[in-house]
């Protein structure tokens, strides 16, 4: 039963790591008061476009946001904006860890944060070099207007409600390197090779031991034959 005691102590210790989760803001309650635009800037060709392929590590994303003029005056409580990269529905299918939920504490659609800026009604622009840890998927950009505590008050996004237009596909790194490939090959060959070498060595040792025994038995056999022929000569058998 001390196992249970240990378990309970462990649980209490882990309590320290636990932060109490409160229900977050409901996304449906937010108004789309910001207009957001995002463009991919291809460094190689120095071209910018609204939708298409972006490569991590080399391409930038230029994001500009501003308050929608039809919502002027509604921005009294806005303090900051959080700019986030969000998965398009096609990248969410069969991937429960990217699921969209109304409760923003539990929502996983926009798990990658881009940056945070101070809120100004005239808006702002940011240039973001796409980092190498971004997974390969189809995205759009969403900007949340938050208050001083970080609670979401409103939002704006580059795509429509159905999340079908202005989507960007990001091409990731594979994570593989030639050096890793070579190291893996070397280690594998070592593993199999040393095994074969060891077995071969033991087989040779065995053969030597057997041949010694074999030699012994051969000698004994020859002696027996000689013995028999002697006995035949003497006409005993």
């Amino acid at each position, binding site marked *: 039963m001390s196992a249970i005691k240990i378990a309970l102590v*462990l649980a209490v210790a882990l309590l320290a790591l636990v932060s109490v989760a409160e229900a977050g803001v409901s996304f449906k309650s937010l108004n789309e008061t910001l207009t957001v635009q995002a463009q991919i800037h291809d460094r190689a060709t120095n071209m910018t476009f609204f939708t298409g392929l972006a490569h991590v590590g080399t391409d930038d994303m230029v994001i500009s946001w501003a308050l929608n003029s039809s919502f002027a005056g509604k921005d009294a409580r806005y303090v900051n904006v959080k700019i986030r990269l969000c998965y398009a529905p096609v990248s969410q299918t069969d991937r429960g860890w990217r699921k969209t939920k109304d409760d923003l504490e539990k929502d996983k659609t926009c798990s990658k944060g881009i940056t945070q800026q101070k809120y100004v009604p005239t808006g702002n622009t940011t240039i973001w070099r796409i980092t190498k840890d971004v997974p390969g998927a189809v995205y759009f950009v969403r900007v949340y207007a938050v208050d001083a505590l970080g609670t979401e008050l409103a939002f704006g996004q580059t795509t429509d409600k159905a999340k079908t237009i202005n989507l960007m596909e990001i091409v990731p790194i594979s994570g*593989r390197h030639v050096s*890793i490939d070579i190291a*893996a*090959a070397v*280690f594998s060959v070592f*593993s199999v090779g*040393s*095994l074969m070498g060891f077995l071969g060595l033991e087989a040779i040792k065995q053969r030597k031991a057997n041949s010694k025994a074999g030699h012994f038995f051969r000698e004994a056999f020859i002696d027996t034959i000689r013995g028999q022929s002697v006995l035949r000569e003497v006409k005993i058998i």
Partner: protein
Amino acid sequence: MASRKSNESEREVGSSTGHEPVFVMSMETLGEEKNSNTSSEPTDIRGRKFPLPVDSEHKAKTIKIYSFAAPHMQTFHLSWFSFMICFFSTFAAPPLMPVIRDNLNLTKADVGNSGIASVSGSIISRLLMGTICDLVGPRYGCAILMMLTAPAVFCMPLVSTVTGFILVRFCIGFALATFVSCQFWMSSMFNSKIVGLANGTAAGWGNLGGGITQLVMPLVYGLIRHIGAENYTAWRLAFFVPGVIQTFMGLLVLTVGQDLPDGNYAELKRSGDKVKDSFQRVLWNAVSNYRMYIFALTYGYCFGVELTVDNIIAEYFYDRFDLNLQTAGIIASTFGLMNIVARPLGGVLSDLVARRFGMRGRLWNLWIIQTLGGVLCIVLGISGNLTSAIVVMLIFSFFVQAACGATFGIIPFISRRSLGVISGATGAGGNVGAVVTQALFFMKSTYSTEKGILLMGVMMVCVTMVIFLVYFPQWGGMLCPESKATEEDYYKSEWDELEQTRGLHLASLKFAENAKSERGRRVAPALVSSPEHEIRV
């Protein structure tokens, strides 16, 4: 006359894929013949004394956990550690799954398939390993398997597609057959009175690998990231750790290990003929015993559930409670780490209950423990709060792993002749259970992971009820009392008329005499000589 008698009992039979019992019985008489002239301390063929007290065939009679002395304790540690590292490699991917699934763009079905692949390879390899150990010895079996699956571990850093990932996990999964070599090796080194404890401890500590990997892999990943690698490179580099350790252990086993207390298979001369039992008859005897199917099925819902949870639990905590990789790994590892005590305790509980209630007690004990495990699984699926989920998971892990230990408290009594095949089938049933639960509950996006856990618990409770169907004529079942049949009748019935006239069933009769302890308090204590420790895996 004496030598003729020993020759008869030397024709021990029951040769099958498990093979340990054959080895126990035949070598017993062999040892007696060899050591008839030793009156002083027993020594091995090179004349060295044994550090532990040994019996007539030089198997240790006690177990000293803190010792590393050759040959017995050294073997114990080499053996369980090898098995542990194979478990480590097989379940090295799950704690890093949040990174891998983004790198390879996996869907839930892909992750599920890789989990199934990781446990299905060993279904076949475990069945084959018994024969391999019999032919070339556990030392070679263990080392060859480890060093041939190490390249699969080294291939993991190279995968870039879903198919590659699933294939590599399948190949690494073959390494779980070291369970068989571990048990076989223990049975060669430890006396039958203590082999149950040795086997149970080695199996439990081996299963630890599934827990340790959840702890270590995220830490290694974190360290490599800290050094400066990108996350998609860091997880690949982390896989070199299990690969290198596996290769190293393989070499250690080859150089330092030995098959038997006296030396290696090749060095020792095996005198005397060991008349092999007919494999067909042994197989038929197992296949026609309905209890084999029942326990293979129920083992699938304790050990199988353990394997499934090893595959999904880190990702579950990461996703549901928004923890980082390292924290999710620490929590997930506690599940596997409970194996240190839980599995051996399950076997010990089974033995304790059997002293009073016999086999009926063992059956009830197993049913209660496994059903409670199922109930706790249901509760785990419902737990939405992090603390309660952790506490429930810990208690759940205890019951699930204790059920594994308790199952193998019963297995040795199902059949004497086909113990190897039945043990192997039960073990394989465990892996099949893992495949089935993952396929049913953790593949489709229609179930969230927590719902899958809940349903898995429900299935555990339902399937475990099948233990009610088990009936031993000489001991009874859970609901029915025993009949007039005796242990001799039961174990003798495994041999047909012809075999009985040839006297092949005599070892089974010896076992039947010892198995009378399964009557519980009905038997006078004097007749009991703790035979339940005889052969237990």
